């Protein structure tokens, strides 16, 4: 491949790339396939973890947590923040394909801000709950679920910050806009994981 052609490709606009991909004459970069399998394996991890939680809950024979449903305010705020960050990222993905002047940096930047706020709220909550990790099986699960989610969100934030820096640097152009899809796929997945944790740990105790 000559550098001239490579450059031409690198500079061609994302909307054209999307159109040609629809005609199946343009494949995806390998990383795009890779991230789906990362999501599959990480999704399995949380599925096994939730299975373990429900298994122990069913065997326990009492309602968890024993002291009554946990307070909702902080968790609900966290949830809203995370959903907002997901939406901001989706907006910048949409603008990449649909708009002449894509608004990549603002969208990713907003996602980073909302995501970091979520992380801070979670850190506060974890700092409060972690010392009680050995109090009961419920507490152990609570800290493990929230802790693993925290790590996954933190990894996502690092990826988003890197993406933002590369975008400001002008390196996310042409076919490399796939980087946005790759990181966004992971980020939306992390949000979905949190929603399932939120439903299990916060909403379910109220429902039953």
């Amino acid at each position, binding site marked *: *491949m*000559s*550098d001239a*052609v*490579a450059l*031409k*490709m*690198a500079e061609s606009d994302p909307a054209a790339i999307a159109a*040609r991909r629809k005609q*199946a*004459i*343009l*494949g*995806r*970069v*390998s*990383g795009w*396939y*890779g991230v789906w*399998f*990362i999501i*599959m*394996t*990480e999704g*399995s*991890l949380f599925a*096994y*973890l939730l299975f*373990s939680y429900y*298994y*122990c809950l069913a*065997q*326990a024979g009492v309602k968890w947590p024993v002291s009554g449903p946990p307070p909702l305010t902080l968790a609900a705020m966290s949830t809203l923040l995370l959903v907002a960050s997901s939406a901001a990222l989706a907006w910048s993905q949409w603008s990449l394909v649909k708009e002449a002047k894509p608004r990549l940096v603002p969208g990713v930047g907003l996602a980073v801000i909302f995501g970091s706020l979520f992380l801070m709220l979670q850190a506060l909550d974890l700092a409060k709950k972690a010392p009680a*990790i*050995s109090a*009961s*099986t*419920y507490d*152990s*699960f609570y*800290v*493990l679920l929230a802790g693993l989610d925290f790590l996954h969100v933190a*990894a996502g934030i*690092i*990826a988003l910050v*890197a993406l933002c820096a*590369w975008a400001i640097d002008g*390196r*996310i152009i*042409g*076919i*490399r806009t*796939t*980087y946005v899809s790759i990181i966004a796929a992971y980020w939306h997945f992390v949000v979905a994981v949190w929603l399932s944790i939120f439903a299990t740990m916060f909403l379910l105790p109220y429902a039953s």
Partner: protein
Amino acid sequence: MQSQDRLTALPPLVAPSPELAARLQALWETAPGLRGFFMSVDHKEIGIRYIVTAFAFLILGGCEALLMRLQLAGPNMRLLTPEQYDELFTMHGISMIFLYAMPVLSGFSNYLWPLLFGARDMAFPRVNALSYWTFLFAGLFIYAAFIMGVAPNAGWFNYVPYTGKAANPGINIDFYALGMIFLGISTTVGSINFVVTLMRTRAPGMSINRMPVMVWGTLTASLANILVVPSVSLAFLMLWLDRNFGTHFFTVGDGGQPVLWQHLFWMFGHPWVYAIVLPAMGFVSDGLPIFCRRPLVGYTLVALSTVATMALGFGVWVHHMFATGISDVALSFFSGASLVITVPSAIAVFCWIATIWAGRPIATAAFHFYAGMIALFVIGGVSGFMTASVPVDWQLTDTYFVVAHIHYVLIGINVFPVIGAFYTWFPKMSGRMLDERLGKWNFWLMFIGFNLGFFPMHISGLLGMPRRIYTYSPDMGWSTLNLITTLGSFLFAIGVLLFIVNVVVSLRRGAVAGPNPWDAGTLEWATSSPPPPYNFTVIPEVGSRHPLWEDRLGDAGASSVARGFAFDEGRETLGTSMLDSEPDSVLRMPGDSWLPFLLGLATTFVFIGMLIHVWWLAGMALIACAVVLIFWLQPDSLPPLIPIEEASHV
């Protein structure tokens, strides 16, 4: 213009030339010396390292087994203390099942896949290197415990409450727990690499019905690993938390559920057992046709039976837990699935037998191993079928009958095909043939030794001998059987030793192989032995399942192997679509890199920090991992992918 029934746009076919080869050599060669050792991303180099490392663990695990057999040779022996015996049988299981069986298959697949696909490398060459380094470091991590005399000591399936802090206060189990999470990283990234390689880098025209069968084996195994490895990683993480932070996941009596450990372990464990035999069954499916001089009978059935076995394999985990008090109604479903799983396995066996029957078999050493595998698979399969029945299993569970079964299936369906694969593909890897006469001695010693050693275990199991006991009293009536088993296992070990001798001797003095010593039909035999760093001077185009056998199969000229695509303007390979392998892009491949080694090293320190509770070390190492990953993933100066139409206009 293009017709409907043709592949899409492609650059012109060219014939290989010395100038082209020289250009590719310059592009693809790994740096020389020690630097190259740490930086190499060549799948052939990594494949061989995988195989050698896995074999080293096989030898270690084998020596541990021989020590145990000496201890059990007669009643009331005092060669080993019970504690030493516990550590030995645990390390034996870990070595064989986690550090040998899967990695050796990954090694062969790593080496062979791009060659089978007519590609220049795997989809993620650096991930490939990472998966090797993490495997090596995780293996050394677990063996560090053995050297320090604190090896895991509660069996490879590590049941709680034996492994809880109360019953097992030492650091032994922590080594195993963290080591397994570590090893899981290697398995997972390796599996993802295999699947994406299959989706993206097959030669144009190699639709899914034209892939060699071993590809189906490794594909299903990899998909299974992606889905089930998290289960065991999670279980070991929870156990580690139980042991180090007083959590109550598996503890007894305060809300924790010991049986949950068994569920999580076997949800992983049973699919894993299939993952370590299906690729090996693929070796047989691809190896037998070479030595029977005809294509495999029932390609579609064998390929899909692999997938069916794996799918059913997700629903049989409770047959390891028939004796845990789960209700009969629930057990009966798992029993049904365990019985029905013999159907796809039997389909494969009948296809192999039909291939031998309808072919003109040449009794090479490799053929001996493949045929031997079929016999052992049938015996191991039948004993598995027996234990799939709940009442029979209640009688046999935790006896030597189960030990006999697991060794028939794992040695029969993993070790025998792997040695057969060595005899088949060693010439490709080294350029030299293994000695055939020595090979047949090697086979018969292993085959007779194995059956002499392990068949009597069925009987000692039926007589009630429990597994994992370190000795027994003379009036149990097991003494003769155990002596025979010990003799057989040593005979088997001599067979393995003979194999190693054969490899060492043949590396120096074996006959020169040439590109296609067996006159085989698939793409890996189209390139020189050993292959150049770029695998193929021109990337071939495939029009049938056996591109090199088309003349004699009445399909001459369907494929184009002698002429192909050059792609010589950078480290590039062809990207093709998933089902029909239609070319859509040129994929740019990374070159030599320090990053995989550094990431592997940093990850090692994360686990060392966690093991010895030096949190700043674990934290710093984690940050180092993130830094390496950012460097790894940053956008290159050139685009990662170029659409094929643009490539074809150059």
